[in-house]
């Protein structure tokens, strides 16, 4: 079978698949009376959750239960998230939060302190949020999967370098090596100069962690689909690590530049320390911007993608025929956004790494590095 005909068959297969899904959704849309609400649907797909939803809806849904780990008054509490029955039940007084506590686990107070069973709609339950919640949520699970993946990939690549030194790269090695060389030549060495070797492990780990998780985030099915790098906690931790690395590797020059910025008129420093104030704020805005940029780019990509999918259902609710008519357009845009996200997955990982490298390079400040290649995306 030639490549071209294989391509055609593949295209035909996917078209049929899409049509089948469309028909199924059509019939589902006509049956269901529940109104489709795009907003919560999208947010639900973007945020973290206590179970890994695979497919289906409501009671028929297939969800991988994940362990819930809590420290309640110093006592560890461990049970599976399936005990919550999709948030409709309480287990030993623990339940999924609602209202302003939505997304957290709450402990019921008063009479319901050890309650196990369905929660009644409209009943007022006294509750408080469990603060020390280290549950293996969907994102934590995705984190572990990506950690295992990255470790396996790079240990096998390292093994290949060890066992076949000075040979033509092959397989995974050939896939990974150009990226490593690119990062070394374009990001690490220009920003850090002779300190490259010291910081290269962190920056490389950072890049591949973000890149792989961005890519896994685009994959719509298990084990992808968790919006890990589009979660503010994850990007925040990465930004905080960069912040600490930057601060702890800073030299005298760095602090001198902050508190006595050269090339700035004296009246910006002397009576009112305006410039030092701006610079001190800058120390914290840099990692903050890193955090927000990655989070916003990835989440926005997912939201737009999901919005295009939602369009089909919104129109399908008006009239199944319109839904069918809209679906090719939606799918086209969905694919377009998917390709955009592929690009964004690389660019955001690259930008995060580049800016981290530059911040560290500036903090060390031993020599003038090239700072021209600033990419603000």
């Amino acid at each position, binding site marked *: 079978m030639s490549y071209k005909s294989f391509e055609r068959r593949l295209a035909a297969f996917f078209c049929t698949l899409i049509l089948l899904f469309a028909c199924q959704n059509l019939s589902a849309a006509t049956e269901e009376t529940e109104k489709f609400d795009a907003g919560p649907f999208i*947010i639900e797909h*973007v*945020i*973290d959750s206590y179970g890994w939803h695979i497919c289906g809806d409501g009671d028929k849904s297939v969800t991988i239960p994940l362990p819930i*780990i809590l420290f309640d008054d110093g006592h560890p509490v461990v049970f599976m998230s399936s005990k919550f029955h999709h948030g409709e039940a309480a287990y030993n007084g623990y339940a999924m939060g609602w209202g302003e506590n*939505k*997304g*957290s686990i709450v402990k019921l107070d008063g009479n319901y302190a050890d309650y196990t069973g369905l929660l009644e709609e409209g009943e007022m339950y006294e509750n408080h949020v469990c*603060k*020390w*919640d*280290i*549950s*293996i*949520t969907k*994102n*934590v699970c995705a*984190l*572990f999967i990506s*950690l295992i993946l*990255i*470790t396996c990939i*790079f*240990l096998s*690549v*390292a093994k290949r*370098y*060890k066992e076949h*030194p*000075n*040979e033509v790269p092959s397989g995974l090695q050939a896939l*990974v*090596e150009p990226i*490593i*060389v690119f990062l*070394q030549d374009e990001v690490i060495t220009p920003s850090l100069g002779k300190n490259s*070797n010291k910081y*290269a*492990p*962190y920056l*490389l*780990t950072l890049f591949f*962690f973000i890149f792989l998780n961005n890519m896994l985030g685009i994959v719509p099915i298990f084990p992808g689909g968790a919006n890990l790098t589009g*979660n*503010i*906690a*994850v990007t*925040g*931790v*990465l930004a905080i*690590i960069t912040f600490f690395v930057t601060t702890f590797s800073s030299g005298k020059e760095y602090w001198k530049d902050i508190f006595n910025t050269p090339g700035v008129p004296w009246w910006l420093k002397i009576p009112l320390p305006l410039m030092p104030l701006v610079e001190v704020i800058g120390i914290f805005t840099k990692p903050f911007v890193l955090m927000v940029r990655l*989070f916003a780019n990835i*989440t926005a990509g997912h939201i737009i993608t999901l919005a295009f999918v939602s369009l089909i259902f919104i129109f399908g609710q008006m009239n199944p025929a319109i839904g069918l008519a809209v679906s090719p357009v939606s799918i086209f845009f969905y694919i377009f956004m998917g390709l955009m996200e592929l690009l964004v997955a690389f660019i955001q990982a690259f930008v995060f790494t580049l800016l981290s490298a530059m911040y560290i390079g500036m903090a060390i400040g031993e020599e003038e590095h090239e700072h021209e290649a600033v990419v603000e995306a």
Partner: protein
Amino acid sequence: MELIKPSFGLIFWMLIGFAVLFFILAKFAWPIITNGIAARNKKIADQLEEAAKIHEEMESLNKRHEEMMVQAKAERDALLAEARKVSEEMYEKAKLKASAESQAMIEDAKKSIYFEKMKAITDAKNSIANFSIDIAQKLITEELTDREKQEKLVEKWMDDLHFN
């Protein structure tokens, strides 16, 4: 709001997970990979340099070879020219010598021919004289038998003598 509310659990696991990943990769992967790439780069660079060096050497060798060829050619040409010159000289000399010799031989031959001729002429003269004397003797003896004839003869001789 849930979207921008970082959860404690994720931060906790993320810190641990990323730290573990960093330490594993920093210990068992990155140094090996980066050193491997650097070592290969160095090897390739070295080999390229070596190749350039060999190329240069080859070039200089070629050049020397060519130079030697040119030199050899020139030497050969010089040798040939010299040989030609020598042979020509020898030829000329031989020619000269030969002509001189032949000249001498011719001279000799001429001389000897002259001598022979002279000798032959002398011999012929002598023979003719002898013959003449003999004939004269015979004539005289024949003529002197007759008085008259003797006289006439003497007369004639006398005339001849006179005219001589």
